[in-house]
Each structure stands twice: as structure tokens, then as C-alpha cells.
């Protein structure tokens, strides 16, 4: 019922193999680091896509929840807790705070919800910059331990000192996230999220509680965002208020939109490609953001469905061109 054509599966398999082999052909440690980071951003971005793209609720606190996860892991691991315990705890805290914020704010709609979540994000950012005892203030927290090694009976252990190991850690979590999101979204459970985005009064009339449904999407999204932030803190080894700022949110949002809203692959492509493109444009200096800002406006006006949406349109055109008189309407949209 929700299956994809075979050639898609083949494409995904090829991508997976490419990802697994990536450490062998990545040119230098700097680029490698950016790739690892973009995987973590891809986790956060996919979950932002869940709440914004699929459930249609413009949460602008995603960076804040990423930050909660990052600070959570930083504080807990520095206090001696194992990363493997701190990570799920930090994600749960993120989800819990998400519920506390979601319960009042999901009563609002559209602009209002966007602005309430944005304000929450700003508050959190200010708190992160000023609560020196807990967060280290504007300097943030340094010397966060790497994820602790995983002992494997009889074989030794997996440690995370090398970039390659960190890369596979990030990749594992990314695949896990995509697997979970894919299951949730492409099922009747996920359809209720899309029903919220598409026609809330009708969903309400057919027995779906809008508030609970939206809250669920919000909490799940924030759990995953917190998890991404937690891994980020541990791998980078430091966290500062900028990790929780609205600029982080804007970045995620840009990845979601440019990659292709409401498509799982779009989020990954956006989060993966844009940071790398930005790096490649580093030589432009301050002009980089100038171009980027203008580009963002152009893309949203002319390609509002982003990269993946654009590809689909192209694909439909090709199909229509090859089979001029196919059953009418079968290929309409998406």
C-alpha cells in the first residue's frame, strides 16, 4: 500500500553503499568533519520536517530543542554519566520540555504558533548565555567527553577517537532516524499528521483529535532534535549558546525547504548538500551570505517544492513526454 517502485529501492541501496564507503574517499579531515556534522544536522532536519512538512505546524524552536539535547549531554557527561545513558536522557528531557511548551502553544495556529515557538527559542538562547553555573554562559561548555567506548565481548571494544568511527556513529543514528520516521510517516499514523496539515476541521470531524495528534508530532520531533544535539555536543566536544539559537533553527528550516518540504529524502539532501556548498563558497567571504540570502528568496519563489520537488516535477514532465496519452490524472502532483 505504501511501497515504492523498485528503481527507488535500488537508488537508495546505491546511496547507502556510497555512504558506507565514504570514509575511504573523503579528501581531508576538515571536509570529513563537515560531513559528520551534516549527518547530525540531517537528523535534526528530518525531524523538523516531521512537524513542519508533514504535520504542517511551523515550529521555530527546533534549534532550541537541538540545544537542549546538546547542553543535556554536555552537562550530564561532564558530571560523569555515560554518554549512552546521557543521550537518551537528554532526548527525553527535550521531548518533555517540548510537551510542556506544546501544550499551551499548540492551542495557537499559523503565525501564532510560529511566533510562540520562536520566542521560546530566544528565551532558551538568552538563558543559555546567562546561566553561567549551569551552561557556562556565553563561552559555553568545553571538554565534553567523546561517546564512551562500547565493549564487544571477546573482540575488544569500539571506541570513538577516530573520525571514521565518529562518522559511522553519525551515520548509524541518521539511518535509525530515517527508518523510524519512514515507519511513522508512511502508515495510517503518519496520515493523521498529514491530515492536520491538509484539513484540520475535516480530521476533527472524522474522529481525530487535532491537539493530541499535533502534540505527538511535536514531541517526537523534539525528541529526535534533542538526540541530534546530544551527539553533536559529544563529537564536537564543546557547546555554546549558538548551538541553541534561532540561527540554528533558520539553518534547519532552510535545509528543509531547499531540500524539499514534506519529503524524507529532501531533508537529508538539504542538510547534507547546503553545509558543503557553503564551505565550498567560503572564499567568497562576507559576500557568501549576501548571495545565499538572495538565492533563498529566488528558490522559494520559483522552486517552492525545493530540490526533491523540482526533481519530481521534472520526472513527471519526462513521463508525460514519453507517454503522451497515459491515463489522465494518474500523475497529477507529487
Amino acid at each position, binding site marked *: 500500500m505504501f511501497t515504492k517502485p523498485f528503481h527507488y529501492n535500488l537508488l537508495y541501496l546505491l546511496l547507502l553503499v556510497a555512504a558506507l564507503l565514504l570514509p575511504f574517499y573523503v579528501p581531508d579531515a576538515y571536509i570529513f568533519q563537515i560531513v559528520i556534522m551534516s549527518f547530525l544536522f540531517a537528523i535534526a532536519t528530518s525531524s523538523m520536517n516531521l512537524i513542519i512538512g508533514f504535520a504542517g505546524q*511551523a515550529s521555530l524552536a527546533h534549534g532550541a530543542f537541538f540545544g537542549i539535547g546538546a547542553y543535556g549531554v554536555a552537562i550530564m557527561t561532564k558530571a560523569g554519566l555515560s554518554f549512552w545513558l546521557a543521550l537518551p536522557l537528554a532526548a527525553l528531557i527535550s521531548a518533555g520540555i517540548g510537551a510542556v511548551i506544546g501544550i499551551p502553544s499548540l492551542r495557537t495556529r499559523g503565525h501564532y504558533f510560529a511566533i510562540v515557538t520562536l520566542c521560546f527559542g530566544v528565551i532558551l538562547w538568552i538563558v543559555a548565555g546567562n546561566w553561567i553555573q549551569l551552561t557556562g554562559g556565553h563561552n559555553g561548555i568545553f571538554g565534553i567527553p567523546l561517546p564512551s567506548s562500547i565493549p564487544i565481548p571477546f573482540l575488544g571494544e569500539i571506541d570513538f577517537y577516530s573520525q571514521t568511527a565518529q562518522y559511522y556513529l553519525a551515520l548509524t543514528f541518521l539511518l535509525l532516524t530515517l527508518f523510524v520516521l519512514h515507519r511513522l510517516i508512511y502508515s495510517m499514523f503518519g496520515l493523521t499528521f498529514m491530515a492536520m496539515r491538509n484539513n484540520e476541521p475535516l480530521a476533527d470531524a472524522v474522529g481525530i483529535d487535532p491537539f493530541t495528534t499535533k502534540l505527538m508530532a511535536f514531541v517526537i520531533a523534539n525528541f529526535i532534535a534533542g538526540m541530534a544535539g546530544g551527539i553533536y555536543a559529544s563529537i564536537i566536544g564543546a557547546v555554546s549558546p549558538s548551538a541553541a539559537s534561532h540561527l540554528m533553527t533558520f539553518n534547519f528550516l532552510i535545509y528543509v525547504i531547499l531540500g524539499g518540504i514534506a519529503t524524507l529524502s529532501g531533508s537529508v539532501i538539504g542538510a547534507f548538500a547546503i553545509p558543503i556548498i557553503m564551505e565550498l563558497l567560503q572564499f567568497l567571504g562576507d559576500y557568501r551570505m549576501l548571495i545565499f540570502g538572495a538565492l533563498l528568496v529566488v528558490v522559494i519563489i520559483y522552486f517552492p517544492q525545493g530540490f526533491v520537488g523540482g526533481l519530481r516535477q521534472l520526472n513527471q514532465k519526462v513521463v508525460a513526454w514519453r507517454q503522451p496519452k497515459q491515463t489522465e490524472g494518474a500523475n497529477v502532483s507529487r
Partner: protein
Amino acid sequence: MELLLQQIFNGIMFGSTYAIVALGLTLVMGILSIPNFAHGHLYMLGGYITFFFISATGLGFWLSMLLSVITLGLIGVLMERMVYRPLTDQPHINAFIAAIGALLFLEALALVVWGPQGLRIPNPYPQNIQFLGITMGLQRLLVIGGAAVLILCLHLFMKKTLMGTTIEAVAQNREGAMLNGINVNRVSAITFGISSATAAIAASFLSPIFMLSPSMGAILGMKAFIIVILGGMGSIPGAILGGYILGLIEALGGGYVSAAYKDVFAFGALIVILSFKPTGIFGKKEA
């Protein structure tokens, strides 16, 4: 007592700025229902352009300000035409993204042209006045007085001129206005121009007191947004009242509770109020 008066004075001064900036934003949000998130950045640009005319041409404060206001008005018209109008029929989130694109562009523009370091417009009125035991800078009084005059002018414009009433008509009923032969696109462009121009006025008044920096628009823009949402989108009295209240809350909260957390009061107030009244204090019921 002196401290209290001093805080109130500062609160009114900040409130004046907030009121003008929010006023401009509420005009475009009410009429175009566009979340012009880049409004704070237009304010920032207004400040820089005034600085540019003063420093590059040697023109006086008032003349530079006038040129800056005109420039920003034109930029506003351009922005409506190029950024927001093409997005009229798309989901709101797209206009929001476009706004983020615009604000990144404006911030980078200021960075490229004027650099990251803070700049200051020479204070045209550096004198101080002692009154009731508190010190009031003349320029600060100018901010307060200028804002009051501007608000009065805008009020007269909206109520007494044809253009003003047209804008109001479009805000209340876009389709109806269109059916009555009003060129809605032209009204939108003009409104955007006015909105940006008022931001330039606020920035010009305040820039002799506070440093200009490329990122100064971000938080201000958000605060204006909050005021507009709480005051009711498109509500002029809501924006003015909201602006002054926010200025006072911040000054008193910052003075008596915690300076570092002063912005938390504004943002926290919004969350609390919207939680209880999901459509704002003066907000209309959703249709």
C-alpha cells in the same frame, strides 16, 4: 525614586522606538498578512544609510535622515514587489522563508559595506537636561518627542487622507477592495514603503545614542513581531500601546530584576499571554 523615574524615562524612550517599529510592521502584516520578519533589518539598514549620508556627504543630521527615509521607502517598495508579491498565493511559511532570505541578505549587505564593528552617528544634541533629579539627554527627549509627532502624523494620514482610508479598506477586506476597483498591488507597495520609511525614522533617532551593528535588527524585529501579534495584526493602537508597555516592562524588569534577562520578560510575556488568549489581546476571533 530617582532610579524609578530614570527607568521610566528610559522605558518610554525604548517604548517610543518599539512603537514606531511595531507600527510599521503592523501596517504590512495587517494589509498583506505578510510576516515581514525582515522588518528589524530594514530598521538596521535605515540607521546605516543615515550614517552614510552624514559621514560621506557631510550633510546634517536632519537632511541625512530625510534622504535615508526616502531611500528606505524605495527599498520597501522594491522588497514588496520582488520578494513578497510573487508569494501571495503560497503558504505563509514560504513568505516566512523569503523573509529569512531577505534578512540574511540585508545583514550580509551591511557587513560587506560597513564591516562588523559598531559605528556611531555623531550625536547632534549631546546636551543633558536635569529634571526632577534625573538626567535626560536631549537626543533621548528627541526620540520621545519625534515618535509622538510621527504617531500623530501617521494617525492623521490614515484617518484624513484618501490613501490612508484606502489602506484601511484593503486591510479590512482585500477582496472587497479589489471588487471596488482599488489597485491592491499599488496599495501594498505604498504601505510597504511607508512601513520601511518609518523604520528608518526610528533608526535615525536612536543611532546617535546606540551603536549601529549589522545584527542589531534581529532582536528588535522579533520584539516588533511580538508587539504586533499581541496588539492584534493590523491594529495601530495595539502596536503603539504594546510598544510603550514593552519598553516600560523591559526598563523596569531590567532595572529591578535582572539586566541580563530583560529580553526574557518580553518573550515570556508573549508565550504566557498567547497561551491564555491564542489570538492576542486585541486579536479578532479567527474566521
